């Protein structure tokens, strides 16, 4: 019979179905019907996220938590292994311990982001119908958004690319999906910075939505030199996948990323009549908070508290703090120079407001990140260093 012809189905063809039913036992052959019953649940019972994700990584038992045995069946040229403990300085008693607090497996993740897209498209239709663009300050619209929202897009795009080797090398399945979703959010963020400007072009023909202005600012502007070099270094100079993620999500993004997204664009946009940018950035902030909780589970709950290696891991996290914090703080200080280019707005662009803004970012970071691993930071000194960049 040709494959294109109608074929009888065993479920619906009466004769075939009868033959199948005749072979099926009256009682099941086993009473255990829970897939992954041997998986240690984080909560009281296994979630679908845990069932779908846990132990999909086929690592041998010499990588902690692995269920397989023996060697790799094919290795890199020269004999390097497919996955290995040597790919990170961190040690774990079980690389399968991490759980994403949001319980994201693929359908959960894409459903949420797909909804975000629909909401955003409806918002854009409303925004344009209301002519809301008319309220945006021209300097903010024509100078700040192309330059600095554009530059933010490059920062986000670089962070996105820092995840590629992490997704290749990391040694656990729940880790891999968390890192993948974080990566996807980052490329999404970079695309959304472009969307804001492309949207303005559509309702205001003649507006230049090319990324070239932001790219020039990111690659040549003094305001982004340290930020760019930090991102480049995380992306291409760093081979330890935990170090890449720790530097990205535990240092750079909660400091520089939050300063730019939340304290610059989110806080200042209303002052310049811009209700578009904060709406788009609200999505990014949702992703940031979800990622933050997932990364806290990896680096605080699992690796810092590891029953065998917690102390060892904390020492490495402190080393990474020493390595990545100075360039991140320098990036924040350099970013301060942008405030001088803004039309002044009382309560937004004055020094006291900016200082309060920087203080919020630093304080949040100390409470949510540094203190969790007992890393000592002088908040006043750090804020002062950043504010020294104000022109």
């Amino acid at each position, binding site marked *: 019979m040709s494959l294109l012809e109608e074929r009888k189905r065993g479920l619906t063809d009466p004769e075939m179905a009868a033959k199948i039913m005749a072979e099926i036992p009256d009682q099941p052959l086993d009473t255990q019907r829970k897939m992954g019953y041997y998986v240690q649940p984080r909560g009281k019972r296994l979630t679908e996220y845990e069932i779908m994700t846990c132990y999909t990584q086929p690592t041998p038992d010499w990588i902690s938590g692995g269920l397989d045995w023996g060697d790799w069946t*094919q290795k890199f040229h020269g004999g390097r292994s497919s996955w290995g403990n040597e790919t990170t300085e961190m040690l774990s008693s079980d690389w399968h311990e991490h759980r994403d607090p949001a319980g994201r497996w693929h359908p959960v993740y894409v459903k949420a982001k797909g909804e975000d897209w629909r909401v955003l498209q409806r918002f854009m239709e409303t925004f344009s119908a209301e002519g809301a663009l008319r309220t945006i300050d021209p300097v903010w619209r024509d100078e700040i958004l192309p330059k600095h929202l554009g530059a933010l897009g490059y920062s986000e795009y670089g962070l996105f690319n820092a995840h590629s080797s992490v997704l290749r090398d990391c040694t656990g399945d729940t880790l891999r999906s968390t890192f993948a979703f974080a990566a996807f959010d980052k490329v999404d963020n970079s695309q959304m910075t472009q969307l804001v400007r492309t949207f303005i072009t559509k309702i205001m023909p003649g507006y230049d939505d090319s990324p070239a202005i932001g790219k020039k600012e990111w690659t040549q502007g003094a305001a982004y030199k340290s930020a760019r070099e930090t991102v480049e270094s995380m992306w291409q100079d760093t081979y330890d996948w935990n170090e890449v993620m720790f530097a990205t999500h535990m240092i750079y993004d909660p400091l520089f990323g939050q300063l730019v997204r939340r304290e610059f664009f989110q806080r200042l946009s209303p002052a310049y009549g811009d209700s578009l940018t904060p709406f788009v950035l609200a999505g990014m902030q949702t992703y940031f908070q979800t990622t933050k909780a997932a990364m806290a589970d990896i680096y605080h709950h699992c690796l810092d508290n590891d029953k065998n290696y917690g102390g060892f891991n904390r020492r490495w996290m402190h080393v990474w703090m020493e390595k990545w914090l100075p360039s991140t703080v320098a990036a924040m200080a350099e970013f301060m120079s942008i405030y001088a280019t803004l039309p002044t707005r009382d309560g937004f662009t004055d020094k006291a407001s900016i200082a309060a803004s920087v203080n919020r970012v630093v304080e949040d970071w100390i409470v949510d990140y540094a203190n969790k691993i007992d890393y000592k930071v002088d908040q006043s000194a750090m804020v002062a260093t950043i504010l020294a960049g104000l022109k």
Partner: protein
Amino acid sequence: MAISLATNAATDALALNRAPTSVGAQEVHKWMQDFNWDFKNNRTKYPTKYLMANDTKEQFKLIAKEYARMESVKDERQFGSLQDALTRMNAGNRVAPKWGETMKVVSNFLEVGEYNAIAASAMLWDSASAPEQKNGYLGQCMDEIRHTHQCGYVNYYFAKYFHDPAGHTDARRVRTLGPLWKGMKRVFADGFISGDAVECSINLQLVGEACFTNPLIVAVTEWASANGDEVTPTVFLSIETDELRHMANGYQTVVSIAHDPAAAKYLNTDLNNAFWTQQKYFTPVLGMLFEYGSKFKVEPWVKTWNRWVYEDWGGIWIGRLGKYGVQSPASLKDAKKDAYWAHHDLFLLAYAVWPTGFFRLALPSKEDADWFEANYPGWYDHYGKIYEEWRARGCEDPSSGFIPLQWFVENNHEIYIDRVSQVPFCPSLTKGASSLRIHEYNGKKHAFSDEWGERMWLSEPERYECQNVFEQYAGRELSEVIAELWGVRSDGVTLIGQPHVTKEGKLWTLDDIKRANCVFKDPLA
């Protein structure tokens, strides 16, 4: 600060034109090639001997949010069918027992391939320099996560509803027990992620996905449907919609390296190695699962293979790449020979070691035997007689104490495992093309079953020095190993694997296996 005249004019015009407007995905995507920037150390962490072009485009031009929306719509359809219509029809249980067992293997082993393809796509994303090309690989990375979870969901669904949940519930833990596992890792895991990034792309996208996903993901749905399984088609056909993106990625990989004259030096050798690697496992294993793991047959595997692998892939697909210097693999003609008998050879061995499975196997019934003989003349004289002898000795009945593996020992039919492919073979009993070759390296003997794998070994033995199950457990008694690798059901004594699927047949326990006193032996020791 002044604003431009154009802007002023546009702002004025705005008051007159307030039509609801939004932005489409393509309007954002068109800027993507500009998202990159050059810097000193901008190079991949996974070097390749190929040179990937900086301006390579992708065929599926998606942005993240649009990708999510599209996949979410597919999910709604798939989960709607599974959780509503199919559940109310009790479709998860109304599946031919043999096929329900087959899906324990198919779904879980495909899951491993999908999972490793996440890492493989990430490596390619790292290796590519063009943002659009990176974006194509990223989309695949996300797809592979989707497929991993979808494959898991098939096992999850059958675990809930199929009449034998054991094996569906714990495949991820018990799968390492059987001799088919390491070979599966070679083609579906390490072959995708360990090597030159482009070589891995050739393995994953140009061969694994463009060649073998058609028989694996599409043909399997026809076998499933014939055998009462509508769960698998619901999920696998949804998977297949994404595979087109992956085939396009493979095509674009070749496009991206084709400008480099040096590529011609390596490309066809890498393609030939990748094809042989993949076919060495998939050709016998898929044929075996379809033909021996089903009650109702669709068509002889050799025909399926010929249509999808030989004609569609080796001819049409590779033909399209001919303008880039790609040629059909030299090993294709040898693979064609394997497509006739290799799966019959493999089932003989798989049944002989049934206690190491996480699924129940069944000897061919009279109806099956007639079908085999009609489609593979000579089948009965070589294989059918052996199965009759095993059946007569009570291989299905625990009280017989007879495991067919013992028959191999009694008749001096030594079973080896090919070092490069990790596929078991029996040189004295094979009707396919396998023949024994042994090499010594690093103070150890290594067996090979064909010339192509032997060549790979001789070029780079350090890549394939992986111990096999016979070496790992040499000297250990079979029931001990089964217990150690979780090969028992929830009562702690009954094996997951069984040599029959009949309602009346008794189930073997660890004690039954122990009485047979089978001990793992390394034939090369």
